């Protein structure tokens, strides 16, 4: 398949993101509360863009570092840690503090899990060891989550369940600014070291022959990708598949040179989640349709299409 230019893809994704932002602000905006609804929809769409982009970038980094096409932002158990942190807040913290404490608890859970993975793997000595430590830590933390769920009453259970399903309704200007700053900073840093990421994607020995300090580079990329995933989970709950499928689509369209594709991955991931959110809003009546469900469904179908296409090419 002939690859398209990365600049073209980046420009197209940027244009699509802008169109989707405008599309989210259209329809049903007459009558009482229109101004509030407009602001709410724009914030929500922007949060979807930032979360989708960050997850896709995180997935692309993990796939390169672990040289594993099935790696996603949650491969090191970040999502389980965040869910356990959020569940602990729902179960143990008084109702009045939930607004602040749930994102903080999720972030703390995700970062604690990352810390545990790094310690267990001996500071990321090898990719396999890191991966295995992540999977095992994820399983242990999941059991903690299940235990916390077993302790919860019906209202706490509803809180945990809906949090896990993913939600973009909590968008505020402060949250958007914080997430945008973090995503921009990490994107710039990863782009700066994209040569090292390319080298790691080929293999440890090849990277060493190119003069890359493999262990340090791996640690840097794993921490950067995990920070992105943790902040996304803290802001919007667990949203699956965006971080897995978007990097594959971008690589299929524009090649696998990380020096070129990282901005396109970020923008495409943002568009993908914006589109999923628009669909979720369109499907919602009085009852809200969780964006995480739409995203997983669409991502799963896309992933199956990609698999079928690769099988045909092989």
């Amino acid at each position, binding site marked *: 398949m002939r690859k398209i230019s990365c600049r073209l893809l980046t420009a197209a994704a940027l244009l699509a993101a802008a169109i989707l932002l405008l599309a989210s602000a259209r329809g049903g905006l007459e009558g009482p509360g229109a101004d509030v609804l407009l602001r709410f929809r724009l914030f929500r769409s922007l949060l979807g863009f930032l979360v989708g982009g960050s997850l896709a970038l995180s997935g692309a980094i993990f796939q390169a570092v672990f040289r594993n096409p099935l790696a996603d932002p949650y491969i090191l158990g970040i999502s389980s840690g965040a869910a356990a942190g959020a569940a602990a807040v729902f179960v143990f913290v008084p109702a009045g503090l*939930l607004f602040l404490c749930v994102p903080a608890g999720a972030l703390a859970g995700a970062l604690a899990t990352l810390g545990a993975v790094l310690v267990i793997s001996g500071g990321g000595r090898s990719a396999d060891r890191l991966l295995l430590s992540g999977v095992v830590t994820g399983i242990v933390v999941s059991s903690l989550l299940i235990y916390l769920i077993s302790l919860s009453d019906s209202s706490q259970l*509803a809180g945990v369940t809906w949090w896990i399903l993913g939600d973009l309704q909590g*968008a505020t200007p402060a949250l958007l600014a914080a997430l945008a700053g973090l995503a921009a900073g990490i994107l710039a840093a990863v782009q700066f070291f994209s040569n090292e990421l390319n080298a790691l994607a080929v293999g440890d020995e090849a990277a060493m022959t190119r003069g890359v300090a493999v262990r340090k580079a791996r640690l840097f990329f794993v921490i950067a990708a995990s920070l992105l995933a943790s902040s996304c989970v803290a802001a919007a709950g667990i949203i699956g598949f965006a971080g897995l499928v978007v990097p594959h689509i971008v690589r299929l369209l524009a090649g696998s040179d990380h020096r070129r594709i990282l901005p396109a991955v970020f923008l495409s991931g943002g568009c993908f989640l914006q589109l999923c959110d628009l669909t979720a809003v369109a499907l919602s009546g009085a009852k809200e349709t969780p964006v995480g469900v739409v995203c997983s469904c669409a991502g799963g179908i896309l992933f199956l299409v990609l698999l079928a296409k690769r099988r045909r090419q092989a």
Partner: protein
Amino acid sequence: MPGGAPPEKGNGAMFSGRYRIFFILGGLLGALSSCLPLEAARIVSLSPAVTELIFHLGRGQDLVGRSSACDYPPAARSLPVAGDFARPSTEKLLALRPDVVITNELIVPAAANALRQYGIKVLFLPCRSIAEYRATCRAVGKVTGAEDEAKTEIERIDGFVRACAKWPRLDRNILCLIWFQPVLAAGENTLIRELIRLVGADCCGVQGATGYFKPSAEFLLRCGADTLLVFEDPALFRKHPVLRHLDAVKKGRVVYFPHGKLLERPGPRFTEGVLKLREALEK
């Protein structure tokens, strides 16, 4: 017999001669006991509403266990706890040796099946409306042998409903939010909405959403409710990114009702809840 195993006694010997008379007498006694009125059954109630009802009917002494959610009347708190109302501990239930376990459709199916395997009768009493409360009264009256008391309770409820119908209408279109993290609203087929209508107010349209549901932001901003009925401190709602923009919140038409359990729990005290709600809405 080579191998040294003792010779087995023929089963026929057990059912012959003088043993036969015991079996026949036993069968006759069993048949007779099934025709006699039920002795006081050992009951475990996992449903808070049913626990209240059993005490209300004067049969609290029949209860040998409860769920952790059964917290009223105070006498109920002294009963042993057999686990959560939806996820009871089978071991604790078996230790209480109940004849009947009363629960609702929320119980984990595996727990109900396990109880049945040990010969314990599991009685499902769904109770989401006043009509279902009447049916529950009848069923509980039958199990506890308090059928007259159950009849009296049904008459009390019918009289109360008739009295409520005569109250002047309240000019309020109400959306009831039972929880805020996540925001959960009362939809159709919930006791709360039936009781709001009984009070004389209107319920905000929910586009067919049933049960307790998580409303979309679009719905909340457009539902047209002029009053929010909330069971949590309204200060919490003012911090919510969507709820704080609702007209009802901006105009201060948020009715904080700290007695939410009286409306959520389809037990004998719902009449008290209705009176308190009417009082709160009239203020």
